């Protein structure tokens, strides 16, 4: 479903990703681990299409279509979702309105009726232990770190993507929030592909990855099963450096 072939990415003429390949199929959970600055977040942002990043060579395809041919919003409508590490605040736009508009933009003809939407929303918010007062607040405006992450996961559940990119969704969460967020992720993975970007083991205690990739200096240097995450937790990254 997602294929990345020999990807090179630069920001302001500095190369961040230096030849990376990856394949994600429907139903697979991939975790990418690595230190800060290894290029993990860049990968997630470049797949979604952040304008600050330039692909200097290599190809990313989603469901067979090269992503360079798709605008950011078209990627979203085609089923891609990015849970942001630092979601932007949109002052004056209420969460409820934003969610309704986003669901109708992304799901198009399959968007639920107003009544079904309210039902879905209520169920997901209960699962994520979110109070309904959230809906009248402005998007991410004055939100705590944990509230922002919950809102990201709520959007993911409502938009029902086929590929979810989760960029450091576990950072800044307490144990309860982590559990709730992990349950959200687990609820979509049977029908979606998922790329988890993290540098902690702890999210992986709740979400079991099929593959763990270690990223160092813009490349994947090692790929293994879920056991690799535990190994990294105890041994660190130094042993993998060339």
């Amino acid at each position, binding site marked *: 479903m997602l294929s990345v072939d020999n990807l090179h990415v630069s920001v302001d003429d500095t190369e961040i990703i230096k030849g990376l390949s990856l394949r994600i199929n429907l139903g697979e959970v991939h975790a990418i681990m690595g230190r800060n600055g290894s290029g993990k977040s860049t990968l997630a942002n470049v797949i979604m299409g952040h304008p600050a990043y330039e692909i200097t060579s290599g190809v990313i395809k989603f469901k067979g279509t090269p992503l360079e041919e798709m605008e950011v919003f078209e990627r979203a409508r085609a089923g891609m979702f990015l849970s942001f590490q630092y979601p932007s605040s*949109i002052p004056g736009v209420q969460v409820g309105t934003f969610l309704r508009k986003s669901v109708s933009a992304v799901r198009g003809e399959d968007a639920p009726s107003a009544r079904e939407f309210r039902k879905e929303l209520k169920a997901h918010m209960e699962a994520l232990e979110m109070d309904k007062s959230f809906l009248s607040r402005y998007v991410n405006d004055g939100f705590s770190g944990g509230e922002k992450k919950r809102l990201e996961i709520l959007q993911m559940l409502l938009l029902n993507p086929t590929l979810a990119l989760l960029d450091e969704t576990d950072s800044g969460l307490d144990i309860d929030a982590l559990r709730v967020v992990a349950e959200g992720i687990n609820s979509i993975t049977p029908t979606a592909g998922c790329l988890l970007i993290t540098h902690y083991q702890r999210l992986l205690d709740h979400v079991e990855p099929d593959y763990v990739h270690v990223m160092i200096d813009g490349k994947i240097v090692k790929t293994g099963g879920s056991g690799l995450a535990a190994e990294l937790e105890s041994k660190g990254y130094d042993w993998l450096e060339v």
Partner: protein
Amino acid sequence: MSGDTAREAVGDYRYGFHDPENATIRFDKGLSEQVVKDISELKGEPEWMTEIRVKAYHRFMEMPMPSWGNCDMLNQIDFDAVTYFLRSSEGTEKNWDDVPDDIKNTFDRLGIPEAEQKWLGGVTAQYESEAVYHSIREDLEEQGVLFLDMDSGLKEHPEIVKKYFCSVVPASDNKFSALNTAVWSGGSFIYVPKGVHVEMPVQAYFRINAKNMGQFERTLIIADEGSSIHYVEGCTAPTYSTESLHSAVVELIAMDGAKIRYSTVQNWSANVYNLVTKRGIAHSNATIEWVDGNIGSKLTMKYPAVILKGEGAHAEVISVAYAGKGQHQDAGAKVHHLAPNTTSNILSKSISKNGGRSSYRGMLQVTPKANGCRSKVVCDALMLDADSQSDTYPTMEVGNSSADLEHEASVSKVSNDQLFYLMSRGHSEEEAMGMIVNGFFEPFTRELPMEYAVELNRLLELEMEGAIG
């Protein structure tokens, strides 16, 4: 500017249509003492009003153009090319069916009769110089509420008009208030008796249809002790290649404990000069609120003002301005704290796009006698591209050290991260921009009646279309 370029400049201006002009009386272009006297005579006005007009005419001729603001644009106004009076209907009707068909069609297209049925307590519809339709709900009339067009107000209640006319905005206040006082026609006259609360908003709608037309409505609202009213004003004009002039004067008087809210969304086409003087006097414990939206026009100069004359009076001025290509919105607020324990809040938000310019011009005055005043001024500007311009001219004159004053100002740009975030949720760049812009204006929009808020959001979304490259 040809008709095509005019249309291009304003984008998809939905109200740019015009109807054939069927004037029953049309004055020759240009202004003279005779024109002023003719308007007064035609209306059968009392002599004192004719005198006020003539005196104001001479003041207008003597006064120089303002030497501040957008002088280049101001000096383009050709006062000799303006038609100062145009009557398009024989009278003011109480029933839409009696309004001439072409004029009724215009207001149908603007949705006024429909809005009236749904949510308004009364409506005045002004076409060119005079009101063509006017009605008020019976229950309000029974409570003694007077809601008339200004010409009828003068005919039926000359004693009230004589007492208050020019009492808040003297003719000589500025060049354009002098002009308005000389040639005024139409506008609203409202009197709310003691203790009466008008629950549903009353609305006036101003439409310019003819080319090179000058519209000079005059509005006077008096809320007697402990009463309240919400007045809503809307305005549009066709898109011609030559300019029209709209120069209104609005005077509000809120007696002890009364409350007046005056909401405007001006959406003039981008060939209209909108030079308006709006001012209110708030007596003890009274409240005056200006909710002022400026979306259209070529040049707007408008600074809704409140004179806090009585102890404990309160002023609220919430304004937004949107300046697109070729537009300059020079707007703001003035509050004069003349009495102790008076309070004011000013919130001004502006957006500039495609080379448009928005300016905030504000005045906050606290006189030496006014102990214990509080005021908060917040100005936020949002720039949508690098070609646009935003500037701020705040003035404070504080003569009493007990005053508690706050001033905050910010200029921001739409960030790439915000756009990327919204686009990653399936919204095109234009839709994303529309959401950010609507969000930015939200503190204003939520103060409007629902129907106006929806319309404003839609207008702003339209403005974002086809504008991103």
